[in-house]
């Protein structure tokens, strides 16, 4: 009986001794002993979400952002992620590792540093939290496209200081390129500001032979300074060149007299320029460039002459015929013109022709060119 009592006391002591906590997890974890701290968490690996497996990523779209669907875990503490990027499926050659990435809402992302172009990459992620480091999730592959670069377009025309019409042809020389570039297009930007804000017109054109141009689809505002530049683009590969040097031009809407002077190749006003804005006269009949025959003197002559054109320009600027003759004679453009006023006539007589005011209206009137018969 004494022996039984001793043994019972020993058993009680054993019970107390075994009350000291211990644990033996069935799977190894990296955390501390659960006996010393809370139990370690369970973690299901994060799954790759983007780029999609086998995705092709244009080199120009770098840097790549990896997105992993969050791990499923029982952890109640903060969960962090490790992302690995390798150049082989076995992850023997890691090219980037990102650790301690904080978990996002539903997904966790990391923006990579630029990767070498034209290569395949594999990536995976794992989560850690609650004293447990999970295993890496499934690996996902993506490919960075080839490196492509485009040279800078060189402006041909209009260059800075040019005066143009309201739809000037913008021209650049075609760019050089490296790598397997796709089709190249050119984007032209026109603005009233050298900062290109706002843009007045934007146009894109496919590459021409040696050079590529663009003509505005609507008239630019006349007598305005515009700035323009061009970019070369490989849309398929997402590559855009640096912009061309900025050029400027001033638009000018030529008057009818300027157009005719240009057609016959003579400066309209090589010296002094008459005052006033155009828009006060209308071209009537026979102003087209042509050869006329003055029958009385059997003279063939090119019409209109620069004198005819200058008188029309003065009428267009609001001059009446007599003041126009006076202005010509006093400003270095001598003339023998003679004005035959209404009511009998309303014509300005020149050597072989009359400039006839239609319906004898000289203010904002229409002027016909009539061959003399006498």
């Amino acid at each position, binding site marked *: 009986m004494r022996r039984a009592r001793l043994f019972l006391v*020993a058993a009680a002591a*054993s*019970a107390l001794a075994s009350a*000291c*906590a211990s644990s033996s997890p069935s799977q190894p974890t990296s955390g501390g002993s659960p*006996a010393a701290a809370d139990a370690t968490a369970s973690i*299901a690996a994060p799954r790759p979400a983007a780029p999609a497996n086998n995705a092709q990523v244009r080199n120009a779209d770098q840097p790549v952002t990896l997105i992993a669907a969050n791990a*499923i875990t*029982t952890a109640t503490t903060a969960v962090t992620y490790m992302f690995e990027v390798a150049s082989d499926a076995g992850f023997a050659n890691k090219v980037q590792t990102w650790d301690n990435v904080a978990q996002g809402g539903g997904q966790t992302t990391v923006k990579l540093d630029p990767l070498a172009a034209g290569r395949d990459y594999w990536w995976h992620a794992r989560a850690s939290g609650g004293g447990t480091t999970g*295993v890496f999730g499934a690996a996902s592959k993506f490919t960075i496209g080839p490196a492509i670069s485009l040279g800078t377009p060189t402006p041909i025309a209009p260059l800075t200081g040019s005066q143009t019409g309201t739809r000037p042809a913008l021209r650049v020389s075609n760019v050089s390129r490296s790598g397997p570039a796709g089709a190249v297009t050119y984007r032209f930007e026109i603005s009233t500001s050298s900062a290109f804000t706002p843009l007045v017109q934007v146009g894109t054109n496919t590459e021409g032979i040696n050079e590529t141009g663009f003509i505005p689809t609507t008239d630019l505002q006349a007598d305005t300074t515009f700035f323009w530049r061009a970019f070369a683009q490989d849309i398929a590969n997402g590559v855009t060149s640096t912009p061309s040097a900025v050029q400027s031009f001033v638009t000018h809407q030529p008057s009818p007299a300027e157009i005719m002077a240009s057609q016959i190749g003579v400066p309209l006003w090589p010296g002094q320029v008459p005052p006033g804005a155009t828009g006060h006269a209308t071209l009537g009949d026979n102003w087209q460039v042509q050869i006329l025959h003055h029958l009385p003197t059997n003279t063939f002559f090119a019409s209109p002459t620069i004198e005819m054109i200058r008188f029309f320009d003065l009428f267009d600027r609001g001059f009446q015929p007599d003041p126009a003759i006076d202005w010509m004679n006093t400003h270095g453009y001598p003339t023998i013109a003679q004005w035959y006023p209404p009511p009998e006539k309303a014509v300005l007589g020149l050597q072989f022709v009359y400039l006839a005011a239609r319906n004898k209206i000289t203010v904002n009137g229409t002027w016909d060119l009539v061959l003399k018969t006498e």
Partner: protein
Amino acid sequence: MKVTVAAVVAWTLFAGPAHAQSQGAPDKGYVEAVGQSSFGSVTSQSFGAEAGIAIKPQLQVFVEGGRTRDVSTSALSSAAKTIAGALAAVAANSGYSVKEPVTFFDAGLRFSFYPSGAGKLDPYVLAAFGAATVKQDVRYTVGGNDVTSTLAQDPYLIVLGSDLSGSFTKPMLVVGGGVAYPVWKQLVLDFQLRYGRVFAEDQAINVGRAGLGVGVRF
């Protein structure tokens, strides 16, 4: 724990056959086998053995050991379900089961309201302190096959932490009472009610046990 269980068995052997006692003679001790229903977060069964020896006319030192088949806590079930969701995302026809068996051993004092031999019924109360080893038996299946041991491998890629695997041993407090009833010579039926609390780290485990012990007094 194995040591303590072995101690109970050894003690039972050393105690030898119970001496025949006449009605009214004081008892020197007892030993009995116990079967119980357990109540906690889940209902289960418990089996064990208990033995005691008198140190005073109404006071006995006793030890007990046993095993409760399942005391799964809500925390364990919830965590298991979370990971089951992850498994279902990568494997069709997945499933899981949760059991949390406890093996315990404790020692304490048992106080009888009446001196032994004073009457037929022997009501008593007791309190004990010991240890419990809790095993977190969470199993995952895919297509009916147990994949728990391969969860960390492709395609599952799941690491079970100690919240869903392994076992731990923690202190355990037991209080209870009952009524012993001698049915024939030294043969006694012991109607028992026990409450145990395992002091686990994350969530204490409470287990109630109600059952019957069959044993002998000597």
